[in-house]
Each structure stands twice: as structure tokens, then as C-alpha cells.
């Protein structure tokens, strides 16, 4: 039971990160590798600020904005320098590795004994881990409602149109450079914010915590889609978070059956590969235990 609550708490926090991945991968149709750098960037910025005595909420917000800045660099490389999206993300991600080390001054920055965002819920005296779940639930709900409202606005619709049909978007006067840059900023801001939250939950920021961010995020998006199928926008957002929780539960299970934590990345990649392959496997073998995926 304890393990399940831990997995749920972690899943909710990673679900926020996955919402960021969802924006680039599904809405903008632009697989963005920047995430691997902006996730630890958020953690590093937040940890450094907390260590210097900044309030954890403000530190987390600043992490969001710094992440957005990282996204804007990738956006700039894609739209103005005309570098292909995948490569632009890899460039920013690589550059961020050095920047993250600079920010932290070392490979691992501990938050031991510092006030963290999770501590703010201690006064409710909830059982262990439930304070994290409680905080994460509030944040997830806030994120989903905000994203839903944002993507209903003129500008949000313009971002969706850019990802859906760029040529049409331009012919209707949408500045697709602008929508792409802002989409990338929003996505990486959310991812960095999630990095900040997870660093606080773990009690430290680590230079290597970004490795596999994309795989975890995509796994959450894909698991949500494969299991829950064709849905409206809000429900898709909810399913991304549910996907992240399910992903955590799967990871917890494989660790329980005896695999090593060192095997985690291998397992992550394997899980994502399986879920990516499921739709075509299902077609080939006529398996209908899941609803149809939306393409």
C-alpha cells in the first residue's frame, strides 16, 4: 500500500511533466528533446534558489520561467535559424547540461533541512506521502484547468492549428513562428516546473535526473491514449496524468519482481516501445481489449 501511494505521488508529479511533453509532441506535433535539459534545469534553478534562502513557491515559479526561456531558445533555433526540430532540441539540451552544472556548482545539490514546497502541507498533518499527493493533485487540477482554458483562447487555438496544419495556419494569418516559440516556452516551462517539484520531493537536484525525461513523458502520453482512447481535450489531459501514474505503477511492479534500479532506463524504454507498438500489434492479432487509439 505504501508503495502504491509513493508511486501515485510520483506519478502525479511526473504527470505535470508529461503535460508539458503533450504540448509539444501532440499539440505542436514537434518531438522536443529540450525536455531532457529543461527538466534538470528547473530542478537546478529551484534547488539553488532554495539553498540561498528563497521561498520554495517563488523558487518553483522562477524555475518555470527559466524553463520557458530554454524553450524559447529551441523555438528560436527552429523558426529563425531553420534548424530541424529534433536537432534544435538536442542542441539546447546539450548546452543546458553545462548550464545546469554551473547553476548547481556540482553534480548534486541537497535540500536537506531546507524548507520545500511539500513542507507547506505539513500543517494538515496528513499521513506520510499524502501531503505530496494532496499538493500534486491541486497542482495537476490547476494545470489541467489552465491549459484547457488557454487552448480555448484565440492564441491557444492558433497553436493547435499550427500543429494540425501549418500551411493552413499561415494562410489564415497565424504567425506560426510565434505560435511554435510560445508553445515550446509553455511546454518547457511546465517541464522545468515539474523538475523543480520533483527535486523538492526527492530532497535534492541531480545533474543526471533529466536522462529519460522524454521517454517517461512520451510513455505517459501514449499509455493514456492507448488505454483510454479517443477523447475530448480535457479528458486527454487527464489521461496523460493517469498515464504517468500507470507508468509509475508498472515501474514499481517490475522493481518488486526483482529487477534492479539500475535497469530502470532499460525498463522505461521497453515500456514505451511496447505501448507504441500496441496499436499495430492489436491490428495484426485482432486484439480488442483496448479501445481504438486516436491517430
Amino acid at each position: 500500500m505504501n508503495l502504491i501511494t509513493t508511486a501515485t505521488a510520483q506519478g502525479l508529479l511526473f504527470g505535470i511533466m508529461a503535460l508539458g511533453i503533450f504540448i509539444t509532441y501532440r499539440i505542436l506535433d514537434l518531438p522536443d528533446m529540450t525536455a531532457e535539459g529543461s527538466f534538470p534545469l528547473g530542478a537546478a534553478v529551484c534547488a539553488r534558489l532554495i539553498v540561498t534562502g528563497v521561498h520554495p513557491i517563488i523558487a518553483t515559479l522562477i524555475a518555470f520561467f527559466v524553463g520557458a526561456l530554454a524553450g524559447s531558445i529551441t523555438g528560436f533555433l527552429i523558426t529563425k535559424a531553420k534548424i530541424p526540430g529534433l536537432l534544435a532540441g538536442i542542441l539546447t539540451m546539450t548546452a543546458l547540461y553545462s548550464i545546469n552544472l554551473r547553476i548547481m556548482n556540482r553534480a548534486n545539490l541537497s535540500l536537506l533541512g531546507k524548507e520545500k514546497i511539500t513542507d507547506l502541507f505539513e500543517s494538515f498533518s496528513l499521513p506520510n506521502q499524502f501531503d505530496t499527493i494532496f499538493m500534486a493533485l491541486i497542482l495537476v487540477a490547476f494545470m489541467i484547468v489552465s491549459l484547457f482554458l488557454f487552448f480555448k483562447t484565440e492564441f491557444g487555438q492558433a497553436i493547435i492549428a499550427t500543429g494540425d496544419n501549418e500551411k493552413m495556419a499561415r494562410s489564415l494569418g497565424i504567425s506560426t513562428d510565434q505560435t511554435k516559440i510560445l508553445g515550446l516556452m509553455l511546454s518547457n516551462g511546465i517541464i522545468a516546473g515539474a523538475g523543480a517539484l520533483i527535486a523538492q520531493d526527492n530532497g535534492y537536484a541531480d545533474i543526471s535526473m533529466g536522462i529519460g525525461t522524454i521517454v517517461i513523458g512520451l510513455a505517459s502520453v501514449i499509455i493514456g491514449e492507448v488505454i483510454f482512447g479517443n477523447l475530448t481535450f480535457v479528458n486527454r489531459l487527464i489521461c496523460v496524468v493517469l498515464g504517468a501514474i500507470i507508468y509509475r505503477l508498472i515501474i514499481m511492479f517490475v522493481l518488486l519482481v526483482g529487477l534492479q534500479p539500475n535497469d530502470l532506463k532499460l525498463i522505461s524504454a521497453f515500456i514505451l516501445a511496447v505501448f507504441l507498438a500496441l496499436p499495430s500489434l492489436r491490428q495484426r492479432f485482432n486484439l480488442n481489449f483496448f479501445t481504438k487509439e486516436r491517430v
Partner: protein
Amino acid sequence: MTQKNVLILKDISKTFYPGTFNQNNVLNELNLTVKKGDFITIIGGNGSGKSTLLNSIAGTFLVDKGSIKINEKEIKKLKEEQRATLIGRVFQDPLMGTAPRMTVSENLSIAYRRGQKRTLKKGSSSEERQYFETLLKKLDLGLEKRLMSEMGLLSGGQRQAIALLMATMKKPELLLLDEHTAALDPKTASVVLELTRKRIEEEELTALMITHNMQDALNYGNRLIMLDKGKVVLDLSGKDKQDLTVSEVLNLFQKSTMNQLINDESSLD
């Protein structure tokens, strides 16, 4: 008909892959003046520069030389999305003109804001949707009931009819139609063409329409131009155009494209 000039093209040239083995001078100092209310059909062989002409006007790429003026304003250096304030477009591919994952209503809402700055205001309203419903009703294709359907679920003809509506609902100074019925079956094509004529008349639009169908080129519009090697080689309007027959056009057409017919099919773009 008023005599105001909507579009003036002066000596525009466009060369693809300059300085390479594949160098291709698609437009050669082309001149064209379009009056307000003109509905011009454009014919010409493959590679004659028809699509490049429309793309040059719309700003898909910048021309190498010459001037492009809409309502006396030079737009040659403007980006495609900036020109969209003045220009409505329908593409050949029905998939190109609409966003498949968005609903019919969302597509129309985006088009309803063509040329406007996108803000954080609500992306659509219920009054708007009612207006869309009346517009769709006028198309007479039963699309008013599909406002909330995803665009990708509609047929090519339905999507093209909506794309036409999207290009014309915010009255553009210039409507560019690039073989927008070529990918449809003959019956649907004629329905969409009729809708096009209706929209152009209702809204008193100025339009350029590329077509490969000689009969359509004669039946529609008040003016016909033929392109060859990046220049306007024939320009007929009014009575001259009305008196033209398909065989006459085909004769003229064959004369100018004789040398190209061999590689005609391979050079589609």
C-alpha cells in the same frame, strides 16, 4: 464594374535553384493587372508557372525581382501570414485547407480571425457559431449539423467547401484558388465550383482561379489568361472570352505547350 486595380504585378521573376544544374526560371518578368471584381481563370501547361504565380502573390516564397502591389500597397517583402490580411486561399489538396483534428466550428473560428492578432480572448462564441450555421446552411450540403464534428471525418468535397468558406468569410481583397477542385470527383467538383461562383458573386470578390479544365476556364469568370514559360501569353476578357470555344483554347494551348507535352506528367508540383 469599377476600374480600381486590386493587384498589380510588375516584372516579377522567380528562379528556383539558381546557379545549379537544376536552375529553373519559373516566372519571367511577368506582368498582370487585376481590376476589382475580376474573376480570372488561369490556364497553362505544367511548369508554365501557374502555381508559382499564386504562391508568389500569397507569399509562400519571395520573388527575386519585380513588384507586387495590392490596393497600391507594396507587399513583396511581407511574410505569408502578413499578406493573409488581404488574401484568401484555397489549395488543391482538400487536406491542405483545413485542420483535421479541430472541429468544423473551430476551423471556422480560426478563419473568422484571418489577419487579426490572436489574443487571449475566447477563441469562439455562441453567436459566432450561430453565424457559421447560417453560412453552412447556405452551402446546402447539410454541413450545418456537423459543426461539432472533427474536420478529418468529413469527405474531401465537404472539406473543400468549408475551406472555400474559410477563405472567403472574412472578405479578402483577393481570392486565390489553386486547382481547388482538381482532387475531387467530377460531380463534387462541379458542386464546389458552383459554390465558388456563388461566393464570389455574393461577396463581390476579386479572384484568380487556376484550372486544368478548359470548359471550366471558359464557363467561369470574366477574364481568362494563359501562362507559358512564366509569362502571360493570352489575356482575354469580356466578349472576347465569351466567344472563345474549347477547341480554340486547346489550339492556342497546344501551340504554346507543344514542346512540353512530352514531360507533362512528370513535372507536377
